[in-house]
């Protein structure tokens, strides 16, 4: 696979896209947020220093989900009043893009779903039930979150957010759903909770004394 290569318009460092469909990336050196245009890369922002990382996942962590290997190529970091969590952007070996969310080491893998007729942020309440893809989900928590930063490659532009609302839903079978109200049109991600050990992760962050 030929990887698209170009240079950072800010510092000139080489920018390599690991996934051909990436829309946005962050220069590893100058932390410029770069968005792909038809011809080149455009700097749209700058990532402030991210807080010390507590996630065992990092860019280039590899793992296996449902017999398909994946690699972590980007992330969005959120904070809310009870802590922070990461949405790691992963690409599967079949080219699909998915999200590995890590909230206090509770892991879930989810995929964007283009289900129509999603509720708006004002319509949701804890305890509501929704059925998507023949699976019933119960809304367990509504999280007003704060966009904290991005890293690596993302499948969309994501850099000018401030406050965003999420609703998490769970099923009786360990399925997991997130309603993301970042944009005017809510988006839905469907997936499942996964065990750390089952992901067979490699290239993890190491922690002193562990």
């Amino acid at each position, binding site marked *: 696979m030929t990887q698209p290569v170009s240079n950072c318009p800010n510092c000139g460092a080489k920018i390599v896209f690991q996934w051909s469909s990436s829309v946005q990336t962050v220069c590893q050196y100058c932390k410029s947020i770069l968005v792909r245009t038809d011809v080149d890369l455009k700097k749209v922002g700058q990532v402030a220093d991210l807080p010390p990382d507590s996630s065992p996942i990092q860019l280039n962590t590899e793992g296996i989900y449902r017999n398909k290997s994946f690699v972590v190529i980007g992330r969005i970091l959120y904070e809310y009043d009870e802590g922070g969590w990461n949405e790691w952007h992963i690409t599967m070996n079949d080219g699909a893009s998915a999200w590995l969310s890590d909230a206090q080491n509770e892991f879930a893998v989810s995929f964007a779903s283009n289900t129509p007729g999603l509720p708006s942020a004002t319509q949701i309440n804890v305890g509501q039930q929704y059925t998507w893809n023949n699976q019933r989900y119960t809304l367990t928590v509504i999280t007003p979150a704060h966009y904290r930063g991005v890293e690596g490659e993302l499948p969309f532009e994501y850099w000018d957010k401030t406050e965003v609302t999420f609703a998490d839903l769970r099923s009786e*079978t360990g399925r997991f759903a997130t309603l993301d109200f970042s944009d005017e049109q809510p988006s839905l991600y469907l997936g499942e909770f996964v065990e750390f050990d089952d992901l067979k992760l490699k290239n993890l962050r190491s922690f002193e004394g*562990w």
Partner: protein
Amino acid sequence: MSAGTPPLTNPPNPQAKALNCPQCGAAIILRAMGHAETVVCESCHSILDAKDPNLQILQKFEAIIGVDRPLIPLGSRGKLRGTDYEVIGFQRRGIVVEGISYYWHEYVLFNPYKATRYLTEYNGHWNDISVCKELPQTGFASANYLGEIYKHFQTAEANTNFVLGEFPWQVRVGEHATVTEYVKPPRVLSSEKTANEVTWSIGEYMYGADIWRSFSLPGAPPAAVGVYENQPSPVHENVKGIWAAFAAFAVLLLVLLAGFDLVSGKGTAFESSYRLDVGEPKGEASFVTQVFPLEGRTSNVEVTTTANVDNSWIYLNYALINNETEQAWDFGREVSYYHGYDSDGSWSEGSRNNTVIIPSVPAGNYYLRIEPEVDPKHPPILYTVQVKRNVPVMGFFGIAFLALLIPAIAITWRSLSFERMRWAESDHPPIKIGSSED
């Protein structure tokens, strides 16, 4: 990675950090850097913002009902279900039921790669708790989790009243949550409900000794007091087993009994009928029977007397005598049968036959000496004497039956009283015997 690009690798993250309390200056160790949201100063009980380099004070609390010392010291490491965990936080929570406060302790267990686990302790009873990935389904006084039914135990308002160490959430003294617990020993399913969140967790009962071993703690764990909501019953598993064993033995006994009956039916050693005339003078009625063999090993002998008594009686003095050794077994039997009518209707008393068992009679040739007595006013009485060898003794079967039944009942009783003690602490206490429902 293409040539010319220097590798960017993240150095190992420092996990622990030593700081000082901004309130009192005491040393504070952050054990779960990046995970801890709040850390509590052990000296002055200030709750500090662990994410803030200056450890901004979020709350200061008074340990109103006393300071608690964690039984597992903060910083202890131990292996639980194959994973190493470090104890980073400790809190005491309480509920009030019928005016009485109950307190339990929760330990926050940290591993940088795995989800947080918790250990809870109440009166020496421990539980290993983790957050549910699958959502339980609640029903009427029960919950279904992964296809198993948990019974509702208690719903109460829990209140945090003492905290120490680090928490991966914003902990505060005075926090409230509605805690609902469902049990299926040895597991407990709990939901904690706050204004905008419901969290389900699943716990499994643990013995203090196992925790002491896991965390290499000195001494012995505190003894468990009473019966805890999801404590496995020490006899519950035995109840079904003992009744199954009882049923199997009862069937076996019945088969044996039937077998004995069939065998002993052929065991009649002697049988003869006699007629006793009233006119004959008493004392001359004594006579001996012919000699008959009693075979096999030393065993019992059953002598049955049947007489056509009708509102009369016959008394027989028997002696079973060994023809060779002259050893004798003396016994007397009465056969009497009375019946009639009175103001209450018909009545009857006694029976037309009588059976006696003589135990431990060796094999040999025997005869009977019989001396009958009757009321001289009565017409002649016909009577039959039958001797059987090796008869099954119902009493033996009865004892065997009881020997099996008593432990079965005892174990069932123990199991029931254990369950009564368990549920006495719940929202659904068992109905007390003797108390009126009205």
